[in-house]
């Protein structure tokens, strides 16, 4: 089946979506985090009446405004792509995505047209408290807006709360509660927004450090470092905590992704947590995929078992278990899943034939299967596997995910240390004396963006080949359009987004150089 698909079309469509999402995500996390930092700073202004806090708030609000304005609507392009490049997918999940995305659209519209306007135009025109409330509502609204997008994204990784309608070929929402409280959605939302808080904190500390290096705006810089240092430290610890719960959820709902993150091929009751390692081709093959071995590894014995299962000696399945099956551990082989998926697809095919013949009795019987728990739990849940010929085709790129995950986690802990040092030096009033720290903080800004993007690379590349976990592979989701058309728009986007990025960086750098005296 897979051979029938135009892989260049699939790959260009995939590449285009990745390009758009990566660029879009350059703007989003700063908005999520800086909005809260602004709210804290303005709260300090309103509570203390200290004009310095107003000056600080207005300076960071300028940078927030530039980032917000350049980034606004860049996510809409992703929705264009759904309709053009991913029409099978859009149709298949339309009813599930519709509700969260509609809520997000309404929230974003009211937020952007009302409270952002009060934030920027309302100084000295509305009361201090109303202005402060608007700033808080922008922060809360922006983060709630992210919630709905992440709920939709989480559904793709753990599709719940729906019933498949064979007549319309669409999944229909049966429980909004299940979709919103999907464990993947809860973990993803908390982990993603707190990582945005960390990025914004690094940004504020980095820019403030630049002022201290240049011996300018020292009071603004020191106060900003204090607020961002404390906010970043709390957020960094939250990122670590939510990352842990998130990994445990992934181990349950996307075990192949989890095993790939750890490059774990052989399951173990004493699985160690690999801190860092180099992956090498072992020469062994799992189907047609390379089996990698870990060289020069630093590993904490047994810790992965404890972190994943919550108990010492808990069994963590490896890729070999997950692909070949392990009856002793109740793990179904992918071959078996392919067979079950094919049965589910045959039922759907029979329904389609009955529909074409106008055989209402057969249609009713076959349609009832899609509401039958035994059929949905044991067959339809493996529907997407029917599109694969070989079990190894469901293994994602292990090295990319393994390294991306480690760099992301390593940077996350580095930022926590950075925040601790920032607060410590602030308390001791030695920030200016430790110029190495100021330079380190400044050069940490791109690292925060790198960590943030790597998080999405782990998430999205880790779930390949699925666009909807177990239900729809990426190659089935694409529209029947020419690869050339997708290539053209790929380069159009590359140019457009690069221009936007250059515009943002140049306007922002100019405003930073001017400082708060605008």
């Amino acid at each position, binding site marked *: *089946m897979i051979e*029938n698909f135009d892989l260049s079309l699939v790959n260009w469509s995939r590449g285009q979506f990745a390009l758009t999402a990566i660029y879009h995500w350059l703007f989003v996390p700063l908005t999520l985090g800086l909005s809260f930092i602004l709210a804290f700073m303005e709260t300090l202004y309103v509570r203390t009446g200290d004009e310095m806090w107003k000056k600080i708030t207005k300076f960071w609000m*300028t940078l927030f*405004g*530039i980032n917000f*304005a*350049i980034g*606004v*609507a*860049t996510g*809409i*392009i992703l929705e*264009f*792509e759904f*309709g*053009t*490049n991913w*029409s*099978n997918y*859009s*149709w*298949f999940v339309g009813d599930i995505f519709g509700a969260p995305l509609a809520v997000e659209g309404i929230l974003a519209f009211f937020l952007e047209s009302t409270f952002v*306007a009060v934030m*920027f*135009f*309302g100084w000295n*025109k509305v009361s201090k408290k109303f202005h402060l409330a608007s700033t808080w509502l922008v922060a809360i609204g922006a983060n709630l807006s992210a919630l709905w997008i992440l709920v939709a994204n989480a559904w793709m990784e753990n599709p719940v709360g729906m019933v498949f309608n*064979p*007549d*319309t*070929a*669409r999944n229909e929402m049966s429980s909004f509660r299940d979709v919103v409280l999907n464990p993947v959605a809860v973990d993803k939302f908390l982990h993603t927004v707190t990582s945005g808080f960390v990025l914004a904190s690094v940004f504020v500390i980095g820019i403030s450090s630049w002022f201290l290096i240049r011996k300018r705006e020292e009071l603004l810089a020191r106060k900003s470092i204090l607020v961002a240092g404390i906010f970043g430290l709390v957020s960094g610890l939250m990122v670590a905590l939510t990352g842990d719960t998130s990994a445990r959820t992934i181990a349950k709902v996307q075990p192949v992704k989890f095993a790939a993150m750890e490059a774990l091929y052989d399951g173990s009751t004493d699985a160690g947590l690999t801190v860092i390692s180099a992956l090498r081709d072992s020469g062994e093959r799992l189907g047609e995929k390379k089996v990698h071995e870990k060289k020069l590894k630093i590993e904490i014995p047994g810790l992965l078992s404890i972190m994943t299962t919550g108990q010492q000696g808990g069994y963590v399945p490896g890729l070999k278990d997950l692909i070949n099956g392990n009856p002793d551990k109740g793990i179904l082989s992918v071959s078996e899943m392919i067979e079950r998926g094919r049965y589910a*697809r045959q039922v*759907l*095919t029979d329904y*389609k034939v009955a529909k074409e013949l106008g055989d209402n009795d057969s249609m009713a019987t076959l349609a009832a299967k899609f509401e039958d728990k035994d059929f949905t739990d044991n067959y339809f849940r493996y529907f997407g596997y029917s*599109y694969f010929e070989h079990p190894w085709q469901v293994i994602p790129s292990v090295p990319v995910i393994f390294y991306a995950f480690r760099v992301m986690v390593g940077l996350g802990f580095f930022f926590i240390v950075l925040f601790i040092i920032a607060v410590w030096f602030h308390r001791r009033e030695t920030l200016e004396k430790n110029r190495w720290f100021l330079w380190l903080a400044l050069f940490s800004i791109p690292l925060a963006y790198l960590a943030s993007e790597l998080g999405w690379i782990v998430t999205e590349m880790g779930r390949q080949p699925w666009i909807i976990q177990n239900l729809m592979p990426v190659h*089935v989701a694409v*529209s*029947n*359009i020419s690869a050339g*058309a997708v290539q*053209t*728009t790929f380069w*159009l986007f590359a140019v*457009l987004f690069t221009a*936007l990025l250059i*515009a943002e960086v140049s*306007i922002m750098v*100019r*405003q930073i150089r001017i400082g708060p005296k*605008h």
Partner: protein
Amino acid sequence: MDTAAKTMHRIFRFYYDGFRTMSWWGKRVWIIILIKLFIMFLILRIFFFPDFLKVNFSDDRERGDYVLEQLTGNN
């Protein structure tokens, strides 16, 4: 002028004054926003990103049947 009209007038003045007294960077980002929205909605959306199913099929029944064909692999 009744209360509703006064409120509308105040809201209008709020936005009008805000845009009129906008800073250098504010004007620049608004220019960028307008160019961006023009490119996205009047060029990309119309010429490069038609909705595949809406363009090729006239109603939801046809769209559903087409996707069903795609899913069952008998196309």
